[in-house]
């Protein structure tokens, strides 16, 4: 059974069909790339999977369970976390505070205990803090723990977004353009980390514009164009697929 599966997934905004009849399967432990020209519907697919956008038709299954139409926080509880394409952060909070929100689900002690700050709640709080610091360290941001998210460089903001998603302890991590806007060094570091995240057992779906990154790290790649699946396969197959080449070049000529 696939970890994540979409069946005949459709999304239309009025007459515009952003996603059309998408069948898409991600196996457990896989690192999947999701690529396509601008406006191909990659981010929309993420929005549909995570419950941010309503599905027009079709289904999203996670571990065989139908999660279509569930509210976003319930889907997060099922084990799907995402890092956003835009720098979606709590800009006026510190790096640590941001990641601590990501620990929301795992640090639960019960409302009354949390309010009264009982020993159990404080233990949870300490554990959350340690976990957050570990994740921040993993993302190479230990020296920025107390910086405001809004004052970070673009690359670090992206990294923070990934750190927050990791704090959710996901089974499936959706990364929306994690290296866009990064310099080559930052980008290489991020690629390293994505590999390590995957090695730790988290399944990753990666939307990315940088072909180099996608070809480099992904096991398999799905190509979208105008909301439809154009091709799917191993990186070398995709690289040489005439249909894919045409879709990309056609887009650039236009």
């Amino acid at each position: 059974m696939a970890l994540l599966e979409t069946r005949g997934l459709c999304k239309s905004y009025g007459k515009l069909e952003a996603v059309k009849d998408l069948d898409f399967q991600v196996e457990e432990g896989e690192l999947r790339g999701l690529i396509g020209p601008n406006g191909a519907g990659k981010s929309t697919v993420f929005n549909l999977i995570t419950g941010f956008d309503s599905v027009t038709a079709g289904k999203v299954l996670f571990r065989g369970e139908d999660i279509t139409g569930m509210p976003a926080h319930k889907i997060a509880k099922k084990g799907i976390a995402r890092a956003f394409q835009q720098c979606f952060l709590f800009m006026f909070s510190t790096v640590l505070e941001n990641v601590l929100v990501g620990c929301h689900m795992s640090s639960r002690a019960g409302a009354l205990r949390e309010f009264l700050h009982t020993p159990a709640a404080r233990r949870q709080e300490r554990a959350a803090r340690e976990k957050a610091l570990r994740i921040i360290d993993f993302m190479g941001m230990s020296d920025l723990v107390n910086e405001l998210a809004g004052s970070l460089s673009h690359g670090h903001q992206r990294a923070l977004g990934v750190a927050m998603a990791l704090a959710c302890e996901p089974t499936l991590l959706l990364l929306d353009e994690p290296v866009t806007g990064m310099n080559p060094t930052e980008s290489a570091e991020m690629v390293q980390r994505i590999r390590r995240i995957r090695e730790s057992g988290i399944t990753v779906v990666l939307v990315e514009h940088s072909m180099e990154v996608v070809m480099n790290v992904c096991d398999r790649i799905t190509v979208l164009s105008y909301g439809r699946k154009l091709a799917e396969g191993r990186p070398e197959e995709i690289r040489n697929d005439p249909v894919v080449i045409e879709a990309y070049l056609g887009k650039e000529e236009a």
Partner: protein
Amino acid sequence: MGIGNLVRSKRFWLGLVLVLAVALPFLIGAYRLQIFIFAITYSMLALAFRLTLNVGLPRFDVAAWWGVGAYTTAMLMLKANMSFWLTLPIAVVMSVVLGYVVFSVSIRRGMMVFMMFGMVFALAIQQVLGTVKFFGGWGGTPALPPVTIGSHVLNNKMWIYYVGLAFLLFNVVVYYLLFNSRIGRAWNAIGSGLRLASSLGVDVVGYRLANVLVSNAFLALAGSFSVMYQAMVLPTTYGFQRSIYVMMYVVLGGFLSPLAGPIIGAVLLTSLSEAMRAVQQYEPIVTGILTVLIIMFIPQGLTGLLHGRVRPLFLRLWPAKAGVQVKGPAGSTQVSGPDEKAGG
């Protein structure tokens, strides 16, 4: 410890304010003390207003829930001969249960619907209080019996002031505990980025509802307190105008300090309106203009001026960037339209 450290120490200021507040009845006369009794009540209202801003929900039904608390207490004292103290938990439960009925439907539909439902409720509740015979009509309830502790009658201003101060302290302690817990963090997250919070597993609707009901509980408590210093309860006291004033207290005090801001704003504006008693008819105009000027020139409010040094970024990012990506601290910027949808 040098004088500089002392001035910068939060504890020093907190202690000083507390000492002054306790000593106040011995420093000023009974008439002046009455103003501070009002200020205490309005501080509680302002704190409750500020609380829901944490989850990105401005509410303009503050005075109506304040009235629910006041009328519950007044009616129980009058019709059931109940002791004032026993009515407190009942008033709180009343406000929370009624709040649950009103908001469990509206809150999942986002900020605008929440706000409109609240205002419609506020209008309705005032009409009910004014026209239903049971509540005494527009002329108010019959004269209320005095509040007692045992055989001691709490009829002098000093006692009322101290009870109010105790209520306010209770407010502050509960808020402080909440804000510094996982609950407070989730609330803040919702206020600063609804979608982001929900993607991290925060149940936006549930936490918003809890937040609003806590606010409701404290509004009712403030309402019960207001019964203490009034000869009778009038529906017009709990009208829409007071809700607008409460918003102005919070604007003046500043959004960045969820505890100090509302209290400072309420005390200052209540004093101002008292100072203008001789030209009472102009008071709303002056207060209104003052509020507009503050929004234009120090949008972060009085307490925000202090934060400005600590968080200069806030000042840089403040102008007009209240869009989708850059979010202010909880409640300080409007939650943008598309963001709001995730609440449903």
